[in-house]
């Protein structure tokens, strides 16, 4: 049976998502060829982590097979090759987010570490008792707790921007919170729990009008949208590689050079120093000042290759395709009686959180898993957001460019199965 929504889509002339060769793209991902519970896997938990293309897996294997060596140290060829690949990845990241210079890219473990780094260095230098830090109700715990820790150490105060019923940031509330006491705005670009895309350009402009720096949590935006940190205008931008087709344990902090230059080091150790004596040490230049110890070299190289892969597909094309999928999935899920979507902002990335009448998300997750459909259930590291909607948890399907309408249909069929069990 074809639904009206399907007919509408079928009758559309505009560029089709099929112009984007998803079948070929899926072949690049070994894990998408596997089965789950004897059924083809429909992987719809991309907001948690993305799958990895063969190119990335091979690049990591190549590093360990052919040129594994420590970086920035050896005079021998292997070390020089490893250093070149590691630093090459830094340049790829800079280009990918249009950073003015690769010196402004600091390798970290992920978005979480990047926020903690900023809080522990820039924060300790610039945030004092009575100062205010603005976050929002839709932040991931990783953009809340580091600021709470900083506030506890310094006596600063967290101010929380509320959100609307549709899951949009309340811009009025945000403006009313900006004051002469505000020292930092730390907001997410895209909500991992609802998909809401926040108007970061305006958020930054309003803060900058008062001379307040802004940190943008890009963990969920960079996998889905073209990112231009200069256009956003923010002062700090953080993200994780593993949501971007790269390995876990690698990510980046971008910050304006003048900020990085003034910031004290994060951790002490090898690589981050210029000279060490027992009467005192001096720091290496930016960004190495922030990269103490042997980093995740293979991870950085993998991240560089992931960026090559995504750039090859084109982030604009990815965003367009995912938007079509989101529209399709939203239309289909909305038709299911008893299902309510949490987060209905007009500007959304391909994340759909939902709850069902009298059925707990955890039960939804188990039953759809049995159908080979992997979704996330729980609070998504957003407990304050769950409290805002007065729900314990949601079920969340988050789509990526390698997902298809069939994946969406599989989810819909699996939800019907949930209803059967609980009829």
């Amino acid at each position, binding site marked *: 049976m074809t639904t009206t929504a399907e007919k509408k889509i079928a009758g559309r002339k505009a560029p089709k998502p099929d112009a984007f060769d998803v079948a070929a793209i899926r072949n690049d991902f070994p894990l998408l060829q596997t089965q789950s519970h*004897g059924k083809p896997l429909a992987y719809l938990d991309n907001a948690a982590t993305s799958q990895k293309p063969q190119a990335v897996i091979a690049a990591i294997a190549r590093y360990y097979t052919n040129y594994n060596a420590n970086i920035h140290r050896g005079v021998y060829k292997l070390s020089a090759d490893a250093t070149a690949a590691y630093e090459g990845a830094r340049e790829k990241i800079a280009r990918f987010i249009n950073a003015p210079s690769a010196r402004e890219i600091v390798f970290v473990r992920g978005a979480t570490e990047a926020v903690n780094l900023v809080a522990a260095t820039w924060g300790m230098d610039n945030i004092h008792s009575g100062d205010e830090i603005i976050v929002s109700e839709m932040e991931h715990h990783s953009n809340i707790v580091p600021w709470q820790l900083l506030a506890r150490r310094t006596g600063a105060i967290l101010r929380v921007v509320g959100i609307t019923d549709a899951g949009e940031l309340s811009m009025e509330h945000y403006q009313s919170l900006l004051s002469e006491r505000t020292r930092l705005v730390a907001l997410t670009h895209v909500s991992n729990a609802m998909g809401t895309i926040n108007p970061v350009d305006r958020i930054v402009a309003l803060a900058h009008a008062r001379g307040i720096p802004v940190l943008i949590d890009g963990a969920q935006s960079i996998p889905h949208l073209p990112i231009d940190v200069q256009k956003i205008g923010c002062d700090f931008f953080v993200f994780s590689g593993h949501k971007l087709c790269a390995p876990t344990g690698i990510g980046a902090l971008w910050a304006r050079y003048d900020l990085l230059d003034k910031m004290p080091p994060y951790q002490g150790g090898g690589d981050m120093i210029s000279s060490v004596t027992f009467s005192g040490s001096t720091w290496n230049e930016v960004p190495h000042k922030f990269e103490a110890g042997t980093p995740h070299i293979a991870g950085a190289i993998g991240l560089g290759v992931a960026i090559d892969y995504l750039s090859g597909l084109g982030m604009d094309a990815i965003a367009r395709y995912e938007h079509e999928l989101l529209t399709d999935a939203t239309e289909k899920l909305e038709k299911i009686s008893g299902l309510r979507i949490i987060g209905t902002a007009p500007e959304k990335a391909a994340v759909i959180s939902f709850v069902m009448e009298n059925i*707990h*998300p*955890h039960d939804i997750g*188990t039953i759809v898993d*049995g159908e080979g459909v992997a979704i996330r259930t*729980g*609070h998504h590291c957003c407990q304050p957001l*769950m409290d805002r909607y007065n729900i314990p948890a949601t079920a969340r399907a988050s789509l990526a460019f390698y997902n298809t309408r069939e994946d969406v249909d599989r989810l819909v069929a699996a939800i019907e199965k949930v209803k059967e069990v*609980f009829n």
Partner: protein
Amino acid sequence: MSDLRDLYQQTILDHTRKPRNKHEMSDATATADGHNPLCGDKIKLFLKVSNGIIEDISFTGNGCAISTASASMMTEALKGKSLAEVQALFERFHTMLTSPMDRDPDIEVLDKLAVFSGVREFPVRVKCATLPWHTLQAAIKHEHRPVSTE
């Protein structure tokens, strides 16, 4: 996959839809809160113990089908039992959920609670079934203290 019907047995669904003993208790001698952060399940357990016997037991909270049914059936099973019997039952229940599928549950002792044996096939859901029981353990531990200090 492991059969869903093993997990969502009719008895379990019945208790999920109509949980028994789901209410607060004003004259409880002990209470405890339980929380499963993985799925957001929250439960509050109320106990009224006198002379080592559970005179009354109830719960409130919000949870998945498995934890709700487990709480509901636990309260039914424990009313009138001595604390020693409760302990023995908890151990059997726990053993059932953590032993291999081919081991038959101890139906004699567990009685109706044996319907939870299907949960074994879904390791990530075992915590849902045991949450009310762990909360009960916490409540019993605090039992001799006045509720007001909870």
